[in-house]
């Protein structure tokens, strides 16, 4: 490290430093992408995006006067995600994840 600094200093002695700069960065635009950090972003039960309201809630909201939807997402210990509404219907008859057949237990819930 010390050597390379020395080199720079030595080279920096002359005026030719400026001519070695071929490019000068004047402006840059950063572009970022994001996606939900879930293994599967479509609910495999109702085939609607988990971040949207499930098929049932969507159908019922058409008749609902107050538009507020409260259809949350649920993640299992197996990391598969579904609508809470969809999954709660299914676990009534079989307490397993329909995708991986593991015993279903909730890891977290939310939007």
């Amino acid at each position, binding site marked *: 490290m010390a050597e390379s600094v020395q080199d720079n200093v030595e080279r920096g002695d002359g005026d030719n430093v400026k001519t070695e700069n071929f490019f000068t960065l004047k402006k840059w635009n950063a572009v970022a992408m994001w996606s939900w950090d879930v293994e599967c972003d479509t609910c*495999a*039960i*109702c*085939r609607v995006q988990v971040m949207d309201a499930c*098929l*049932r809630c969507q*159908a*019922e909201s*058409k*008749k609902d006067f107050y538009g507020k939807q409260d259809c949350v997402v649920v993640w299992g210990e197996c990391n598969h995600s579904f609508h809470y509404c*969809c999954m709660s*219907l*299914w676990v009534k*008859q*079989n307490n*397993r994840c*329909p*995708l991986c*057949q593991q015993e279903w237990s909730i890891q977290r819930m939310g939007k």
Partner: protein
Amino acid sequence: MITLRGKLKKDNDVSNSKSRDTNKRVSIRDKLLVREVQEMEQTLPSTCQIVFDDPNRLHEFTLVIVPDEGYWVGGRFHFGIYVTEDYNMAPPQVKCQTKLWHPNINEDGDVCLSLLRQSSIDGLGWAPTRKLKDVVWGVNSLFTDLLNFDDPLNREAAELFLVDKESFRHKVKEYVTQYAKR
């Protein structure tokens, strides 16, 4: 399929505007079926054919299977498929309408296919992640890959196969000629 989708939409609009209370529930089954029927038809095995008696009733149709290999080749088998209102929490009901000699289909037309079992502890039974196309492929495979003599519904058929394969083949042919000729 566009017309069916349009029809469903129109029906919904009409009933919604009529009264919000009497039309208590938009059928989730019908919404799922609009997409699944289309997918099923696009991925239909070459040995299968789907017939809708009433194009407005997507939940009731006939699956016609004409096996191109195996014991039942030369036959034409009709299966009635009825998708109940609680689809896709419950599997479709499948009934064989053609009499045949098969270890996994009895002479009353009951079909033994793991996929169609409502509750099972293994991973093979029904799950809401399954679709109509899986049912079609499953039933179709009963004539080939999924043919199973170890867990028979028609015990007599399975036993005959174990004892004497040639008479099994003969009996299958006999049934085909009598009941399932194309």
